[in-house]
């Protein structure tokens, strides 16, 4: 029943009338991988998941699962389990009946269903709630019930559509960690849709970042964080996100607000660029860019400073105990390898 769970999208296009929800999407997911589809709302990530599940058909392109073309295969024949954002539990059935439903549909004998249901419920710690109806469960318990219903079948692919977005902040963090452990222990391929970059960063082995119907970057969270491909991704990943400052590039240096910073770029010549600076990569040093501290957001162990550099707003993260006062003027700089350069016209990385 369980296969490898390898996924390939080949030039997938999805049109809603004149509107292109997906404009030729390509990616590959390796077996056993935790793969996140990350992007703001309306970027096409949920459409991608629905096409993978077989709930929507692509306008063009091919979907391959384990090297088999499943583009026109029915959802129920794809051997895919899914956790919906709303959980989509069957309200008239008990928790046990909910979890058993996919096994019943697979026509498993009753003697096999009962232990499988108990086992799945134990894995997500709801085995004491099997006789309840979904309406009698808390949000967190409902979420676990949906998870159990998805893992009970040991499908080759496990799809999750923003499964944590309806939980409160504390529960979300706890469940996030458990979800990762669960996926590891099952060894199943997981595809996870989220608009929360932190969730994607912490959970995913690799991720695809969606921007207005296109994938702009595929990579490990580390790669995407360290080398964002475009201005849009740079502004989306990281909390607070990367500073994006218009600047002038001259022979390997950039000039921001009259101050010259060295970069690792070696191209000769002169042009307009957008400079990307991570708030955490900025440091205070003598002889750097002059900046006035406008506002301090104290987060406990770190603080985020809103700086005014001759009219340009820059945010900087500093460690506790190193915080200047509001209204102070400081001098900041960045190492050449921490300066990202983007083309303002194409919005892509230079």
């Amino acid at each position: 029943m369980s296969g490898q769970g390898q996924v390939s999208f080949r030039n997938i296009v999805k049109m809603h009338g004149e509107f292109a929800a997906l404009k030729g999407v390509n990616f590959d997911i390796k077996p056993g991988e935790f793969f996140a589809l990350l992007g703001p709302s309306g970027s096409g990530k949920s459409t991608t998941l629905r096409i993978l599940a077989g709930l929507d058909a692509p306008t063009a392109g091919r979907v391959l699962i384990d090297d088999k073309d499943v583009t026109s295969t029915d959802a129920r024949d794809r051997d895919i389990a899914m956790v919906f954002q709303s959980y989509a539990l069957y309200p008239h059935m008990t928790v046990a009946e909910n979890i058993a439903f996919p096994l019943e549909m697979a026509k498993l004998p009753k003697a096999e269903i009962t232990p499988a249901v108990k086992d799945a419920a134990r894995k997500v710690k709801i085995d004491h709630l099997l006789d309840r109806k979904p309406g009698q469960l808390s949000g967190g318990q409902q979420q676990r019930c949906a998870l159990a219903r998805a893992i009970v079948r040991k499908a080759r692919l496990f799809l999750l559509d923003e499964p944590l977005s309806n939980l409160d902040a504390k529960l979300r963090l706890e469940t996030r960690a458990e979800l990762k452990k669960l996926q590891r222990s099952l060894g199943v391929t997981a595809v996870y849709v989220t608009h929360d970059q932190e969730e994607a960063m912490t959970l995913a082995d690799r991720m695809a970042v969606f921007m207005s119907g296109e994938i702009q970057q595929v990579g490990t969270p580390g790669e995407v964080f360290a080398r964002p491909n475009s201005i849009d991704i740079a502004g989306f990943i990281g909390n607070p996100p990367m500073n994006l400052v218009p600047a002038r590039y001259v022979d390997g240096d950039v000039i921001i607000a009259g101050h010259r910073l060295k970069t690792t770029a070696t191209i000769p010549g002169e042009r307009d660029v957008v400079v990307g600076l991570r708030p955490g990569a900025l440091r205070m040093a003598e002889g750097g860019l002059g900046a006035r501290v406008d506002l301090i957001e104290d987060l406990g162990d770190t603080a985020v400073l809103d700086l005014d550099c001759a009219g340009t707003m820059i945010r900087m993260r500093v460690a506790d105990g190193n915080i200047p006062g509001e209204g102070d003027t400081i001098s900041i700089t960045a190492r050449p390898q921490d300066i990202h350069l983007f083309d303002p016209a194409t919005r892509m990385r230079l």
Partner: protein
Amino acid sequence: MTAKRLRIIALLAISTVFLLAWAFPIVWSVLNSLKTDSDVLAYPPKLVFTPTWEAYRDVLFGSGSILPNLLSSVIISVGTTVVTMLMAVPAAYALARLRFRGKKFAGFYVLATQMLPPVGIIIPYFLVLRNIGWIDTYQGIILIYLSFSLPFAIWLLVSYFEDIPFEMEEAAYLDGASRLKTLWRIIIPQVRGGIAVTIVFVFLNAWNEFLFAVVLSGNTVRPVTVAMFNFVSVEQTLWAKLAAVSVLAMLPVVVLGVVAQKHIVKGLTVGAVKGGGRR
């Protein structure tokens, strides 16, 4: 405080008037059904009398027994309800869920049939049934009843189906269920409240129907609503018997109404608030 009290008194007064207006014919029927014919015609009306079951005994077991007519009514009402529901449930599901050519028109047509005055179509119906030889047959009456119970049932059920979130169905597909299995195992159990309401309404409409029945039925098929008029003739009206039959005919309506009261109230307000009609 006084304004509030005044409002309560006004409300009570108005409700009492309505209640009396509604209850009077029923109370009248029940009282008269327990009188002898001479007591019924006594003037001034007798409020104190010796109750007797005579009228009931006569209409049930006498020479003009209405038992066959009650049976007729049951066959017609149950037949109409069963056939209506068998067709209305899948139709309503399709209208609520599937995308197909002419769906908008189909939805409008269903509603438009509800607006036709029944008197206007009774003659065409009569001609159609006569031409196919179905006058005074069960299949004839049920067919005609279907023509208005089916649109009504579909229209009522669609709102219940629309209340079920799409994701529920998609979850079932991914769990390996076919469309029919999903309808049967996931959707229908969740709209069973709506189905119960629809069954009650369709059954009661068929049970209470008089106009079509009196024109399209005859000696073989004669529901109780029509048969009652045997007790009204040019020379005299057998008030006690007529009252007894009406009480008997009302019984299933009252029982169903009481049993299904909760569902019916929900059914009337379905769609008023998003999701308000569910569960």
